[in-house]
């Protein structure tokens, strides 16, 4: 216990100032036979304990790749991290040994994947796969691990957990499978959970249930949560702040309600306008024109310029920096003032 600690009354050293997780200037590229695909190009974001960060973007925007880099589950090669830092509780994970990082995975940082059916091993019972967390990390016996697995299944409200613990993933419904994924991530009560499109594969009604469960458990354990999604509807209810990604960069970040009221980047604005609304019934739905950029040949200047309704000459030549546009808000647009002020 340090002096600072006592005066601040914080549970662990450094937590008063340093966030739980901080990503600094992260770059990730993939070497393919057609060239180098730049998937992540200088991402910065941070999450505090108990806070939810939503990372928003189209597929290919680099949101999942960033998450995989944080988890340390990128395929390297073809992946490579040429630059950047990922600070977890103040320590750069990219400088840790493989064994140190492995011990953090599951225990301190856990991940929930999109498709629970393919993400669970089809030939092992869910009880075995849940219990494995305790056996591998805590050295529990097979029997004790199974008891823990049943406990976990109860906690995520899977009915008749005791009878179903020996069932296989394909015997559960989609919603139940996603609950099992959540249970697996929660098993060792980690400090940070990364959920990569956790509800995309589910029915709309089940989506809400799973999202509520996740949010509730996050509050219970005061975990940090990174929620990766392309669904703006999911975000509004659960997130504290939002980072919008495009072509491997963050183009806008802001507290959640600000962004819905007054977006500061044309891309975010386009995303918001493309949500169907009841009061616009009968009108044509807005769509951002064009396609996401080819990561092998990202457009020069602002990557969004070929699709942007506001693009000027400067957008084709100069990469915009993340301007501070308000309290804890940033926008990487040369014309953020015009976007905001409209």
């Amino acid at each position, binding site marked *: 216990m340090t002096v600072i600690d006592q005066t601040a009354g914080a549970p662990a050293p450094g937590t008063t100032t340093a966030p739980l997780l901080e990503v600094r200037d992260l770059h990730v590229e993939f070497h*393919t036979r*057609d060239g180098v695909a730049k998937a992540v190009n200088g991402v910065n974001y941070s999450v505090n304990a108990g806070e939810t960060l939503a990372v928003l973007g189209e597929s290919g925007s680099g949101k999942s790749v960033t998450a995989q880099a944080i988890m340390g589950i990128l*395929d390297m090669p073809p992946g490579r991290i040429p630059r950047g830092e990922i600070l977890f509780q103040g320590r750069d994970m990219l400088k840790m040994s493989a064994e140190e990082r492995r011990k953090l995975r599951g225990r301190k940082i856990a991940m929930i994947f999109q498709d629970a059916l393919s993400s669970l091993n089809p030939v092992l019972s869910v009880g075995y796969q849940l219990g494995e967390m305790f056996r591998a990390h805590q050295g529990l016996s097979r029997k004790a691990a199974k008891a823990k697995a049943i406990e976990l299944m109860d906690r995520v409200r899977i009915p008749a957990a005791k009878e179903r613990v020996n069932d296989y993933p394909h015997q559960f419904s989609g919603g139940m499978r996603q609950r099992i994924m959540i249970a697996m991530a929660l098993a060792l009560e980690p400090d940070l959970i990364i959920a990569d499109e956790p509800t995309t594969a589910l029915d709309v009604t089940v989506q809400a249930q799973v999202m509520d469960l996740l949010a509730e458990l996050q509050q219970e354990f005061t975990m940090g949560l990174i929620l990766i999604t392309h669904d703006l509807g999911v975000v509004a209810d659960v997130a504290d702040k939002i980072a919008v990604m495009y072509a491997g960069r963050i183009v806008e970040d802001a507290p959640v309600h600000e962004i819905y009221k007054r977006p500061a980047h044309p891309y975010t604005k386009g995303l918001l306008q493309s949500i169907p609304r009841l009061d616009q019934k009968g009108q044509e739905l807005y769509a951002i024109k064009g*396609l996401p950029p080819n990561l092998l040949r990202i457009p020069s200047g602002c990557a969004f310029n070929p699709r942007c309704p506001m693009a000027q000459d400067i957008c084709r030549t100069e990469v915009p920096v993340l301007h501070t546009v308000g309290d804890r808000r940033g926008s990487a647009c040369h014309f953020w003032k015009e976007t905001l002020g409209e």
Partner: protein
Amino acid sequence: MSDMYDTQSLVNAAGGAPGGLPVQEPHGPGEPAKPSPDGAREKPRSLWNDAWHDLSRKPMFYVSGLLILFLIVISIWPGLIASASPLACDLAKSQDGPTSGHPFGFDQQGCDVYTRVVHGARASVSVGLFATAGVTVLGSVLGGLAGYFGGWWDAILSRISDIFFGIPILLGGVVFLSVVKGGNVTTVSIFMILLGWPQIARIARGAVITAKQQDYVQAARALGAGNARMLLRHIAPNALAPIIVVATIALGTYISLEATLSFLGVGLKPPAVSWGIDISQASSQIRNAPHMLLWPAGALSVTVLAFIMLGDAVRDALDPKLR
């Protein structure tokens, strides 16, 4: 192979990036769609273009392709590199080693081993090609129809191919050919077609069933496309790739099977010139004159290797998921 025509997935699979990176041709509306001088490059690459692109960068493809070309040429015109008759033998030279003009030496009957090795290519290559062509046509038609129409026709065909799979091909060959007697290129090929077609039929059936379930095929059906049009325009191109792969590899194994049957004395028979026969005759003298066995055995192995290598290269090119 459901999405083989989808260039996007091909590129992604090749890149191996988790989560799938969108690697697309840039067609942003922001840039003017100017006509490219190289029109072919602007088109999205189809499966076949992509496969060719992949093959053209593989040394294995060129090595095996050239070897096969060479084999085909000398099976048609063996006189190009060996003008003597393979049946002109001089018993006085029995088992002699190599001399000038006879680089591989002489066999038991005093025939020139080099000439016989060159002339032996014809039997192997023709049996291989005939058998493969027959098996492919019969197998894809029967299997394709079974997969497309399903029902009782499919059920019967599946049972029949089960029956053929129950007979080990070598055993069946020995029985069939010893009963038919008169082993020659035609009978050996016919036997292979009779016993080999279920292999292709299974592949074709599976491929057609997969293709049939594709959304765009369903759409074509909903638009009222007739059976013939459906099969030829929409399903056949999709089912072709796996059939080509299996057929190329099968070609190599048929050549090997012909030699084995000839070796066992039920395939081609003297005075036919076949590597299998020569190896069989040389086998009793392997301790005294190994050259009699090694040359035809080497030629046979290289031939089989060439076809299997080609099949391997084609498979890698057509099925990027296996990389």
